[in-house]
């Protein structure tokens, strides 16, 4: 149990502090002035000293100087109503860990004491700016999290009201959206809800978007924070710029149905397009416009390799690809399966397909795919692939 000494000439203050420290799991020692504290510290060791400045007999700075002169390096937090810079600057030179101005909130005392004592719950250092990996929480639009917080799919932070209106009009109805117009409202929303994607206007008038993005990521570590901006002439350069500032990506205004379709696919439909359970890979169907079909297959092309690697790493002998819900394009689907088959062959995996007669017919039409066994249901296919 960490031992903390509170040095203050006010008994009331010492009592309040002792109560709060005890609640944190600390053992508390009290001293009414600097001299009494130094005397006690000759007999006992403590892990932290909370030190007032103005006290009779010996004040805080004199006690701190005496402590350091004796070679005692115990962490000290100044807890005082003294806000004079010269006093605190001198204390800093002698070595104080932190400073709390009276009157103070119990949370501030708890946070700073925990930090000094290296206890869990003290404020952590800022997140590594280079950290770019974004993991999305499970899609559960409208549902409540285990902490009772409400899920929202998209949080929009933009001072122009019509931006959120336009987004609402273009996003599918199952994608939930919440709009705020200021940094303050965004931070409040992120404390109350769990977001999957946060769209932040890159040019908010009252705050640096990059700074706000950093703060939002602290509150929503699993959300993808995306910069909203007018489309620049060089998008690749712009994406690099926003990524260097901590954004996951950029989304350009004005929004078009095509860009929003890509956005939805990227952040919300990914799991539905390809779902893996053990060695079973289910492909979802394509519901967009016919001219966007190529994007569906391109997306599947990119989703297959990591799924296959996971299956191979788990030492399965075969992969079952369930096509019963998939969109069976007469040329694109065989090409996809040929590519998957080739990749599996290199990894030492067999490919088995689940589908009806239309799938069997499709596979039989091409040299590269006609050898892939096709089953009517997943149970029998999985039995073969085990």
């Amino acid at each position, binding site marked *: 149990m960490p031992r903390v000494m509170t040095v203050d000439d006010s008994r009331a203050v010492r009592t309040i502090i002792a109560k709060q420290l005890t609640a944190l799991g600390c053992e508390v020692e009290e001293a009414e002035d600097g001299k009494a504290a130094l005397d006690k510290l000759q007999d006992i060791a403590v892990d932290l000293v909370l030190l007032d400045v103005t006290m009779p007999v010996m004040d805080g700075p004199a006690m701190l100087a005496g402590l350091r002169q004796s070679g005692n390096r115990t962490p000290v937090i100044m807890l005082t*109503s003294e*806000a004079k*810079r*010269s006093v*605190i*600057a*001198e*204390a*800093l*030179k002698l070595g104080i860990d*932190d*400073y*709390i*101005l009276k009157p*103070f*909130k119990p949370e*501030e005392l708890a946070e700073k004491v925990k*930090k000094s004592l290296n206890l869990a719950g003290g*404020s*952590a*250092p*800022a997140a590594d*700016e280079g950290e770019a990996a974004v993991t999305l929480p499970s899609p559960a639009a409208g549902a409540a999290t285990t902490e009772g917080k409400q899920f929202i799919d998209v949080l929009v932070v933009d001072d122009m009201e019509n931006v959120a209106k336009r987004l609402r009009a273009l996003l599918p109805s199952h994608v939930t959206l919440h709009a705020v117009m*200021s*940094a*303050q409202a965004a*931070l*409040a929303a992120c404390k109350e809800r769990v977001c999957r994607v946060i769209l932040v206007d*890159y*040019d*908010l*008038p*009252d*705050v*640096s978007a*990059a*700074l*706000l993005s*950093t*703060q939002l990521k*602290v509150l929503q570590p699993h959300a993808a924070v995306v910069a909203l*901006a*007018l*489309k*620049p*002439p060089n998008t690749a350069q*712009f994406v690099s*710029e926003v990524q260097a500032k901590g954004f996951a990506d950029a989304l*350009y*205004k004005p929004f078009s149905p095509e860009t929003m379709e890509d956005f939805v696919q990227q952040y919300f439909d990914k799991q539905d397009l390809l779902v893996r359970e053990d060695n079973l890979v289910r492909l979802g169907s394509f519901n967009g416009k016919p001219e966007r079909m190529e994007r569906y297959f391109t997306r599947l092309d990119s989703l297959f390799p990591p799924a296959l690697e996971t299956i191979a790493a788990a030492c399965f002998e075969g992969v079952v690809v369930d096509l019963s819900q998939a969109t069976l394009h007469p040329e694109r689907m065989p090409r996809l399966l040929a590519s998957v088959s080739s990749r599996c062959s290199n990894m030492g995996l067999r490919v088995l397909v689940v589908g009806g007669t239309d799938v069997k017919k499709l596979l039989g039409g091409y040299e590269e795919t006609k050898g892939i066994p096709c089953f009517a249901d997943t149970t029998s296919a999985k039995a073969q692939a085990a």
Partner: protein
Amino acid sequence: MDVAMEPAAKAALEKSTGPLAQQIEKLVLRKIADDSLALPALPSAIARCMELLKDASAEPKEYVVVLETDPMLAARVFRMANSAAFGGTQRSATLMAAVTRLGLKRLKTLLLQAASERLFISKNASIAALAASVWQHSVAVALIARDLCALTARSDSEEACIAGLLHDVGKPIVASVLLEAERQIVELRGSAWIGSEEWTYVLARTHRAVGVAVAQKWELPEVVRTTVRDCSEFDAANRASLANVLCFANALAKTAGICPPLTDIEDAKALVLIGRSLLGVEEQVVGSLSSTIKGRVAEVA
């Protein structure tokens, strides 16, 4: 006073140079009062635009008419409207398009920034370097103060930004008065006047009052004037004051390395420590503000 030195030396300097600082302050303020010190006026185009901004019914074309009278200012509006953040694939070809794209709130900040920046440009080589570094520092303080307000549920981020830009505006003005005095003394006596420590001390002691006078002359809001006046020290009795935000932003900019010459960093560190507790700023926010400010100042200043 935020000049780096030991307490004993500081006390000695205060004793020896305090009266001179008082005299200079009185002199400068008297010159301001009787209009004999050429305080920079708010450029006419900016003054007219600021008037328009107070008029809710003003149309963008009215701003365009005024901006067209100041080519430098118009160029600045174009540059911002066509910057990466605003530009998009379509460039603003007309001033009307540029003003519309920026929006009135951003236009106001841009105008005040342009007006303030002109005060920090000196033809005198002795002051130019000081003025340039004070300008960089002022932009940093303005950005930090603005962001801090936006992130801590305050509605006065715009005033914080303006006060940040102007909090040190008295420095180049007092410096020019000091230089002129020095020039005359050297001519009369043939010897140097005061050393660099005394020079910096007098500047630190007197510049705030001159900043307030500039804010007054430009008819900036009362809160901006009081903020510039009171931002040297924290007021623990009035924790929520904008002056406290500015005092913290000022110290944080210094500890982040964007500071005028001879800044006392230990003093600034103490102010950051006090300000964090006084304003209830989380350590993580302080870290983000500090680590990003240099890059952001480079983008703006």
